[in-house]
């Protein structure tokens, strides 16, 4: 079977986001079948058999996650759709919400039928004002056409969908941070267990799924689990949105089968490294992933292959850096991000991200010492696995890998009085005078 795009085939067409357009292409037929013909358990088994794995970053099998939700519950169950999309280098869910919002709603209906959920919250990051309005308009239309509401698509199934806007906090992309934020608090993550499937939103069983994950569901029902598993590698199959940004000729979102080669993605789909320059480094799965050198890019973009290469698919946010990039500056940029976004609950993260930023800063401005390179590793060791959520890990992974794989950039900055950009701006100020800036 040749590869068929499911998220983006019509994004360049006028009104592709409208209900009429979506239904004209067969939209909501799978949701109708799920509501009227399918038993919930069969839906869960089909998604398990398809081996759909979460597209938000962790890659957890979606059907298995649904299976953790108690079948009998005297509490209501909820779906929290993770549309917080704030991993640096990631901009795929935005495309679905702006161009194909009904695909997401159809996926939501299928998930809710499978798990017995009657209220879904879509947590969309606060900056996506346009996307939130698009979604709200699509939801309003769906209510007025009887797709959502008391009797979804003519069935006896009731489903409400509410858009909940975030307000600017990376940590709310972490599932328990997101739930806390929906509950009206500062978005600080919670200890697991209990897992959200058992005790999530408002203390009730909750499924947390990413936008792109849910958008796969209509297609899985349409072609069946067996055919779906044939797309890409069996261990992480399916169509996938890859985001490519940074130093390439044609940055963008590319819909391809899981398992496409990273090299092909950069060179063919994204037009290659810009300005005829050479490749230096690539972050394959959002800034939380271990960095790859140019020589390490002949790797398949799927969950297993990237794990084997010592990094991760994550959110499939590929950031490309050309030969002129100073990795000290790149590290400083990334560490400033994590330090800013640490929620502050756990000491290893709150302090560790700050230390990493400070170390990167002093190396960049000419106050670094060779011992700082070991210090980075030491700080990272004291962060990974020692906090409530994975933000500390997300900061440590790029830090330790950038310093290890691009050590020469750091040694040069230490010896030359700062990163090349700093030295250019401050030619007279070399030799560590700015160490305490």
């Amino acid at each position, binding site marked *: 079977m040749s590869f068929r795009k499911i998220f983006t085939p019509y994004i360049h067409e006028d009104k592709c986001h409208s209900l009429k357009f979506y239904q004209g292409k067969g939209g909501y037929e799978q949701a109708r079948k799920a509501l009227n013909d399918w038993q919930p358990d069969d839906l869960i088994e089909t998604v398990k058999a398809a081996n759909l794995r979460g597209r938000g970053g962790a890659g957890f099998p979606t059907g298995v996650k649904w299976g953790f939700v108690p079948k009998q519950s005297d509490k*209501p169950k909820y779906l929290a759709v993770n549309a917080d*999309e*704030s*991993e*640096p*280098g*990631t*901009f795929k869910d*935005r495309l679905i919400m702006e161009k194909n919002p009904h695909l997401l709603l159809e996926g939501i209906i299928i998930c809710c039928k499978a798990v017995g959920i009657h209220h879904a919250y879509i947590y969309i*990051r*606060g*900056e*996506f*004002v*346009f996307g939130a309005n698009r979604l709200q308009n699509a939801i309003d239309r769906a209510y007025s056409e009887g797709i959502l509401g008391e009797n979804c698509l003519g069935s006896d199934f009731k489903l*409400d969908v*509410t858009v*909940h*806007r*975030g*307000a*600017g*906090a*990376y940590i709310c992309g972490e599932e328990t941070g997101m739930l806390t*934020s*929906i*509950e*009206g*608090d*500062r*978005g600080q993550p919670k200890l697991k267990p209990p897992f959200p499937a058992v005790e999530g939103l*408002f203390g009730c069983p909750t499924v947390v799924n990413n936008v792109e994950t849910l958008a796969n569901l209509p297609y899985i029902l349409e072609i069946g689990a067996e055919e779906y598993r044939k797309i890409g590698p069996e261990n992480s199959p399916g169509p996938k949105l890859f*985001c*490519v*940004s*940074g*130093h390439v000729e044609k*940055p*963008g*979102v590319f819909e391809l089968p899981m398992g496409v080669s990273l090299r092909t993605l950069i060179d063919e789909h994204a037009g290659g490294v810009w300005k005829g320059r050479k490749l230096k480094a690539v*972050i394959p799965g959002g*800034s939380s992933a271990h960095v790859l050198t140019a020589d390490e890019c002949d790797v398949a973009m799927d969950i297993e292959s990237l794990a084997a290469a010592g990094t991760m698919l994550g959110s499939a*946010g590929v*950031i490309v*850096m050309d030969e002129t*990039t100073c990795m000290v*500056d*790149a590290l400083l*940029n*990334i560490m400033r*991000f994590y330090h*800013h*976004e640490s*929620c502050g609950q756990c000491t290893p993260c709150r302090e560790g991200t700050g230390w990493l930023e400070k170390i990167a800063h002093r190396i960049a401005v000419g106050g670094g010492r060779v011992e700082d390179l070991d210090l980075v590793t030491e700080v990272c060791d004291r962060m990974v696995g020692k906090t409530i959520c994975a933000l500390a890990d997300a900061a440590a992974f790029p830090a330790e890998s950038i310093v290890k794989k691009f050590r020469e950039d750091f040694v040069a900055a230490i010896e030359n009085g700062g990163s090349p950009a700093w030295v250019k701006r401050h030619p007279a100020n070399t030799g560590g005078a700015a160490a305490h800036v």
Partner: protein
Amino acid sequence: MTVTETLAFSDEAMKKYEWLLSRYPTRKAALLPTLRIAESEFGELGVPQMKYVADLMEIPPATVFGVVTFYTHYRRAGVGKYHLQVCSTLSCALRGSGDVVSRVTERLGIGVGETSECGLFTLSKVECLGSCDTAPVIQCNDDYHEGLSLEDVDALIEQLRQEAGKGGA
């Protein structure tokens, strides 16, 4: 306190607020969206506005303050009419967001975190806006301005100035 007493949601805003309450099993869950209503009703979220929301929702003012200050995207008191938020995270930095910040600084004579004397512009550096393929990006209030050249930055500032002039600001 007198300032707080003069603040009140319009009937339309109150309707929106009531609708919000119907969407959640707890009142507190409506806090984030209610702050958005307050933001658009009052133009900014300073202490009096936060106090109003706290009273309305019967939530301790300290909790409301804690929530507002935890997040970066609420419109805090003292921000100019146009809040120029320049994305400065890696993908944008690789494609020149530093030059965009310098250009805004040059044109408006304000540094990062400052507001122009006319009160029109505030410049901020923000973290990843999720628009890395169209870097560099500025979010001005609610709107994204993407794929900016330095000339585009000039044009945007000019356009905003004219817009403000028309509005009698």
